């Protein structure tokens, strides 16, 4: 690295995972790859023989794939929340984790959409949605909103990366040829002039504001896939906000898991630390409380009113064949996070990691319990049925999760893990704020600060 320009600590930390790939990465990658192959193999079989290989039947026409669909689109909320909402509210501690969160959004949405394709009986006719689309169908609302959300969140992921890509182009001069080419092309001739930064910031702010309602819309129309039907416990006005809360809740939890693992593997302790775990842990706790509130509201009104059709479904959930899943979900989504996160000592990497694992499993169960019980207990009692996922569905589910993790890992082998310029900006703001706090000064120099080297 003779011709290498001087690098700051931050730059060295961010460049390192791009420059060196250890045995650990290949091991994890191979393990994930195997799980993906298992899922892919089962999918090919399903494609050849038909959806009969799943556990679905009449009238339980939707199963684990739809649960996965809600779950994956739900966790996509992570990026929007951390990046867009925290950017608009100028929370400085977000800076080192914005990209980690935004990448989840893109990949989770892709995986969510994939679940629908896997679930389709005739995926070869997908284009019919464009050709013959019926706009009264909530399914079409989903296609539209998720499409818009996917494109705008990818754009939003890309925009703040431009200065970083230019930095890679300029400072990693002995990079492999394909990387040099990639960084040069994607940096779009970025020079870091004040004017360029001005335009970039403007566009990022605009996209942040566009993304928030788009995300709200996506999670709402996903819920309306169920809410717009007249099936018992689906046909409910609570579903829109309930899904948004669940989305933020599971999104933060998954971000915690990815963030903690990557922080440890790539030694980001100096940048992602106490503050992130404390604040984000509090947010997770708050979302757990919101989630409990919605769950209570949904089930208490149903039980109190005790209208036959809904009561039948709810009884199956709370007291009947789904009771282990339901109370397990309550334990994982409410009891565990509360027991850990109310304590300051619990909001550590380990504490939040454990709570997040619980929440991710709990929220997946929640999605399962939204889809299945209503379908097994239709109004006409002589149509009741049961459902148990088959190995095909289990393999495809695990394969999908592995694919999400692998895409995420590979992405950060190609692109920088942190927004260098944003982190530097945060450092500068704090450095300036520290002496100015006495004067109660709101950072007069909130402007462009470029690395001086």
């Amino acid at each position, binding site marked *: 690295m003779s011709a290498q320009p001087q690098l700051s600590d931050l730059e060295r930390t961010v460049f390192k995972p791009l420059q060196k790939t250890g045995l650990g990465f290949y091991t994890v990658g191979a393990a994930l790859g195997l799980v993906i192959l298992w899922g892919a193999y089962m999918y090919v079989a399903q494609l050849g023989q038909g959806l009969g290989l799943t556990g679905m039947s009449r009238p339980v026409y939707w199963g684990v794939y739809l649960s996965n669909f809600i779950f994956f689109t739900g966790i996509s909320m992570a990026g929007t929340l951390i990046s867009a909402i925290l950017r608009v509210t100028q929370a400085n501690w977000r800076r080192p984790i914005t990209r980690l969160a935004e990448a989840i959004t893109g990949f989770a949405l892709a995986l969510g959409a994939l679940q629908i394709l896997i679930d389709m009986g005739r995926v070869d006719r997908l284009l019919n949605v464009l050709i*013959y689309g019926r706009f009264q169908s909530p399914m079409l609302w989903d296609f539209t909103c998720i499409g818009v959300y996917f494109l705008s969140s990818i754009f939003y992921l890309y925009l703040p990366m431009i200065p970083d890509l230019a930095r890679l182009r300029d400072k990693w001069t002995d990079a492999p040829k394909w990387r040099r080419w990639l960084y040069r092309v994607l940096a779009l001739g970025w020079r870091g002039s004040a004017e360029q930064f001005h335009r970039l910031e403007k566009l990022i702010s605009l996209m942040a504001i566009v993304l928030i309602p788009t995300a709200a819309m996506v999670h709402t129309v996903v819920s309306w896939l169920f809410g717009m039907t007249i099936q018992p416990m689906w046909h409910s006005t609570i579903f829109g906000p309930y899904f948004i809360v669940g989305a933020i809740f599971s999104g933060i939890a998954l971000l915690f898991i990815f963030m903690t693992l990557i922080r440890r593997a790539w030694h980001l302790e100096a940048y992602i630390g106490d503050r992130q775990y404390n604040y984000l842990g509090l947010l997770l706790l708050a979302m757990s409380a919101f989630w409990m509130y919605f769950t209570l509201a949904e089930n208490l009104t149903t039980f109190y009113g005790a209208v036959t059709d809904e009561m039948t479904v709810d009884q199956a959930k709370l007291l009947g064949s789904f009771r282990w899943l339901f109370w397990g979900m309550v334990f994982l989504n409410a009891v565990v996070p509360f027991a850990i996160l109310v304590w300051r000592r619990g909001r550590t990497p380990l504490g939040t990691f454990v709570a997040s694992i619980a929440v991710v499993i709990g929220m997946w169960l929640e999605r399962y319990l939204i889809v299945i019980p209503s379908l097994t207990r239709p109004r*006409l009692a002589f149509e009741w049925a049961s459902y148990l996922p088959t190995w095909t569905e289990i393999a495809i589910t695990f394969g999908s999760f592995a694919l999400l993790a692998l895409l995420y890992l590979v992405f950060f082998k190609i692109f920088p893990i942190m927004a260098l310029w944003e982190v530097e900006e945060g450092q500068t703001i704090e450095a300036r704020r520290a002496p100015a706090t006495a004067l109660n000064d709101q950072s007069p120099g909130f402007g462009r600060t470029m690395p001086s080297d």
Partner: protein
Amino acid sequence: MPRWGMVIDLDKCVACQSCSVACRMENNTPIAGPEEAERGRAILWNEVIPSVEGEYPNVKMRFVPRPCMHCDDPACVKVCPVQATYKNEDGIVLIDYDRCIGCRFCTVACPYSVRYFNWYEPQWPDALRAHLNPDPEVAPRPKGVVEKCTFCIQRLHQAQQQAKDEGRVFQASDYVPACVETCTARARYFGDLDDPNSLVSQLAKSPRAYRLLEELGTQPKVFYLRDG
């Protein structure tokens, strides 16, 4: 334009299931086999469903022959993302099998669970395969699409064609679905609900008449006459 409807007299129905068999032969629904049928995979557009009401010793067994309700306000039509399921000008709810993408939104939206999905490529034992209805309108549906009762729409088209060929005006009584024609107990009636003189419209006004899940507002065009 007639508004086709059906009346099923549960007092007359003997639950012989000849309607189910006639429907299968007329409409080429595939054979799922006992194992798959046990898993809820049987495709019977017109199923005779046993329904146990109450608990022993105060118990009653009912049989409900259940075709598609052909709702005037169907829950299935508006949710289809590709307009593959639709209500035609006669008020019959149909599916375009060449367009259906198999997302099964209609099947979960239908409160009557009358829509069926082709989990596998359709199959028949050879003896049955030899007797498939050759009418191209009921050609076997491919794997991965939704299908259901059509009130034997092909029979309507045949009856209309026949009337035309014979140079006479088509009448509502020219057309009945296979289940109605075959019903051993003559428990089924079919005709124009908009014609005040038709038997179906009069029976539909009987004090014994009711429709499944009437309170949902789907306006089914299949009426049942309560059994005693």
